């Protein structure tokens, strides 16, 4: 380890220091409102400085820690996305937890450490560092899912997530060991070389195939696509709402970023194998994600299914294995994250007037229009954007995914994507219908802080006027969508 390694790893190191400070603070100070506020401030400061370091200090195109990690523009793009998403989530979580009176130092510690895991996962170029990152992230998420420990559903979701997550990690690990046995190496580029050599020597690929499929299964568990999606709705429903916002966004970005890298570096010349797998998984996820969501009444379950559908879309971009495909994934995932975070921020502003619970059943949103037009308008714009209606941002995400499909002559996938878009438009419309057209129930209590309002307004501006800065954004993506093959 050299000094330069530390510079490259600085954004993670800041987060680790921040999380240790939080832990120590938790030891020396008793739980009070003041100390909680301080902890939150430490979290924010470490996140923001980590964002600063990622954007300005870390050099791109370099390896560190004996080639365990590497940073190029591609990883930096995803890192910035992940860290900025976490900033928003930690703010809405703090408000939410403060309201429920369950702020604890552990919470922010876990968020920061799982973020470190995701960052390691994104920048890994070795199957060992990748596994470390993935597990670091997952273990924190298991605890976060069951954070409201006196709530039966929350504990259930934590246990469920843990069992299934552990199983998937086991499968993944088994696959990794097979890959290691076959290629005798853990470095992505070495694996790639070794596969090429075996191809030339006509080695039997059966073992490698098995290992590869097992790894894909493990990764599919993490991003929750069909047929490895069963845990998602239950876990999303049971977890505290702000954690659900975390689940639907940040770990998925990490896993997607890694998946693209993993498929395009070590298995670069293996694309005919993974093309078919991703093809089927994409179709299945889009169809199931859209149809199963139609009858959901819990907004978190509904968003879980809709996220399965969106992941299906993203897989289309990945399987084209082209730069357009990666670009479309980057655009799509950015817009998706922005919209989902906006929606969760809005959801966390709604409470039941009588018992003070946060609203989760979509039927209880009825008549929000009369109560608070700002929130109802935001919901409408964000859901229309998720449904992919122009001129809102979501349309451009869908447009680029369809472009990458049509460019590679995947017309069947494009048509399935279109059909499922229409079905999913149905349930987004259902929420809008409940908010605007249904008779008011009159027990909604809205509680918007100034900062949440600011967050929502920024997100709305991004969603509505995306057409104005899409060109600049695409320039960034153009520069960052290149995965260097060296």
């Amino acid at each position, binding site marked *: 380890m050299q000094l330069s390694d530390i510079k490259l790893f600085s954004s993670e190191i800041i987060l680790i220091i921040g999380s240790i400070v939080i832990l120590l603070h938790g030891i020396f100070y008793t739980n009070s409102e003041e100390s909680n506020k301080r902890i939150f401030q430490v979290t924010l400061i470490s996140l923001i400085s980590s964002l600063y370091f990622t954007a300005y200090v870390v050099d791109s195109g370099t390896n560190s820690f004996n080639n365990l990690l590497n940073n190029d523009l591609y990883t930096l793009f995803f890192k910035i996305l992940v860290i900025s998403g976490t900033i928003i989530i930690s703010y809405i979580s703090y408000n939410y937890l403060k309201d429920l009176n369950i702020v604890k130092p552990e919470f922010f510690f876990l968020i920061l450490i799982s973020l470190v895991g995701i960052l390691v996962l994104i920048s890994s170029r070795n199957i060992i560092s990748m596994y470390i990152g993935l597990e670091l992230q997952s273990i924190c998420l298991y605890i976060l899912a069951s954070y409201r420990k006196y709530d039966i559903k929350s504990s259930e979701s934590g246990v469920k997530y843990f069992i299934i997550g552990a199983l998937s990690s086991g499968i993944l690990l088994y696959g990794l060991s097979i890959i290691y046995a076959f290629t005798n190496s853990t470095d992505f580029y070495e694996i790639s070389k070794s596969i090429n050599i075996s191809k030339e020597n006509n080695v039997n690929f059966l073992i490698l195939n098995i290992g590869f499929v097992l790894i894909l299964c493990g990764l599919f568990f993490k991003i929750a696509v069909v047929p490895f999606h069963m845990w998602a709705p239950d876990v999303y429903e049971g977890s505290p709402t702000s954690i659900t916002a975390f689940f639907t966004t940040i770990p998925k970005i990490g896993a997607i970023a890694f998946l693209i890298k993993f498929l395009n570096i070590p298995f670069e010349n293996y694309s005919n194998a993974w093309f078919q797998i991703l093809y089927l998984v994409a179709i299945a996820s889009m169809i199931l994600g859209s149809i199963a969501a139609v009858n959901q009444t819990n907004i978190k379950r509904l968003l879980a299914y809709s996220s399965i559908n969106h992941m299906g879309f993203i897989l289309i971009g990945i399987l084209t294995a082209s730069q357009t495909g990666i670009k479309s994934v980057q655009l799509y995932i950015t817009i998706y994250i922005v919209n989902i975070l906006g929606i969760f921020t809005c959801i966390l502003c709604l409470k039941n007037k009588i018992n003070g619970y946060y609203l989760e059943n979509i039927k209880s949103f009825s008549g929000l*229009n009369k109560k608070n037009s700002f929130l109802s308008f935001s919901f*409408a714009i964000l859901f*229309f954007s998720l449904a992919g*209606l*122009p*001129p809102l941002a979501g*349309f451009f995400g869908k*447009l680029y995914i*369809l*472009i990458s499909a*049509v*460019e590679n002559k995947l*017309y069947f996938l*494009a*048509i399935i994507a*279109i059909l499922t*878009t*229409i079905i999913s*438009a*149905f349930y987004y*419309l259902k929420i809008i*219908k409940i908010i*605007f*057209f249904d008779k008011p129930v009159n027990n909604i209590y809205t509680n918007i802080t100034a900062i949440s309002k600011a967050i929502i307004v920024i997100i709305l501006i991004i969603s509505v006027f995306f*057409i*104005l800065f*899409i*060109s600049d954004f*695409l*320039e960034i993506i*153009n520069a960052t969508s290149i995965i260097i093959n060296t």
Partner: protein
Amino acid sequence: MTNIPILSLLIFFPFIGSLIILLVNKKDKSHKKKVKEIGLWTSIINFFLSIILLYSFDKTESQFQFIENIKIINDLGIYYYLGIDGISLSFILLTTLLIPICIISSWNKIKEHVSYFIVLFLLIESFLIGLFSSLDLFIFYIFFEGSLIPLFFIIGIWGGENRIYASYKFFLYTFFGSLLLLLGILTLYFYSGTSNLTLLFDLNIPFILQIWLFLSFFASFAIKIPMWPFHTWLPDAHVEAPTAGSVVLAGILLKLGGYGFLRFSLPLFPEASVFFTPFIFVLSLISIIYISILILSQKNIKKLIAYSSIAHMGFVTLGIFSGNLEGLQGAVFQMISHGLITAALFLSAGSLIDRMQTKNIDNFGGLWKQMPIFSVFFMVYCLGAISIPGTTGFIGEFLILLGVFKINFLLAFLAAFGIILSPCYILWLYNRVCFGNNNYKDIIDLNNNEKFIFFIFLLLIILLGVYPNLLMNIYELSTNKLIIN
């Protein structure tokens, strides 16, 4: 004059107006009045802007005018590329005319969420003007599909009893069509490498690809027009929509399909258009004759008018695909005239429904005694709808039949049946509404707002019916150009 981006001004002026409305303080007591006034003035100023556009439009020039070209997506080479020819100008004028009328007509009727109502109408105006003036496929698509959102809310919030079903059906049906259009646009884009319409016109697309692309464009436009058998969303949407919503829907949104055929399908896929012509003729004939017979059994006044627009739009598709000048000019004229007449009919129906709280035709009757002024106006609109000479309806349908006669006698013969059937249902409608007796008391004749609006429609229907060149001069060269290509 040429330096001012007048098209962009037309597009974004209503949008800015709607933003201002959202900023008006809601707690103010005169909030509703202020909002309505801002909305009305915005749309009226926009109307005068379009009149300026009409005056500075060069009628002797067949190329696109008022070109604006700004790159928005470098990556794909998508331009914010605007420009109009005579056909688009006519539709822009129709739009800017109808929107202020919609706002005036619902001045006292809309009591809930007034600011949303005005905002949504201004947004629709923005989208529609943008749509008619865009010369880039992607920009067109953005405006085309964006216009769904406001109308979904208009039907859903201020609609009748069954409004939710209707708004869903309307939205999902048209959304489906437009996504197929998007797929077609993408395929075309990857084939040609550009989405610029003027460049695409010079392109020779292979026949097989033309067929597929034509079908994908057709799916979208046929749903919008709507053509039998894609029409089922229309009666529901019309019946449930508030009067102003029906006016926009019938007056302008149905024309998007015809406009799409004229602007895209014909010039881009000429061979496929010829190939599919018999198919479209059959569908149009079914639209005309089958729907006309269907109308005879309608009891709901709004449904009756809605179905009659399907029959009238059948003539439009006949004219568009007849492939000769008379047919095309007739089709454009028929679209504008239908926009005026049906809008007027829906406004009349709206006045009736407001007074009697029923949509059932059997409950009306004897209104000539209580509402004499209304009866006169309604008479003229009905005569327009059955295309009596001297009204705009006659010019359009006559030209279309002339064009169709040139290619096939039998076809024209069958289509003429539509002209015979339309008096059956329209005059019968008039008979049941205005003659006879009713049980209502205290029915007041038209108020000043209504008189004003009704008079504008009457004036335009008669004026353009007697002197059609006023409108035809605008788009004559553009249709000529379509034929030459």
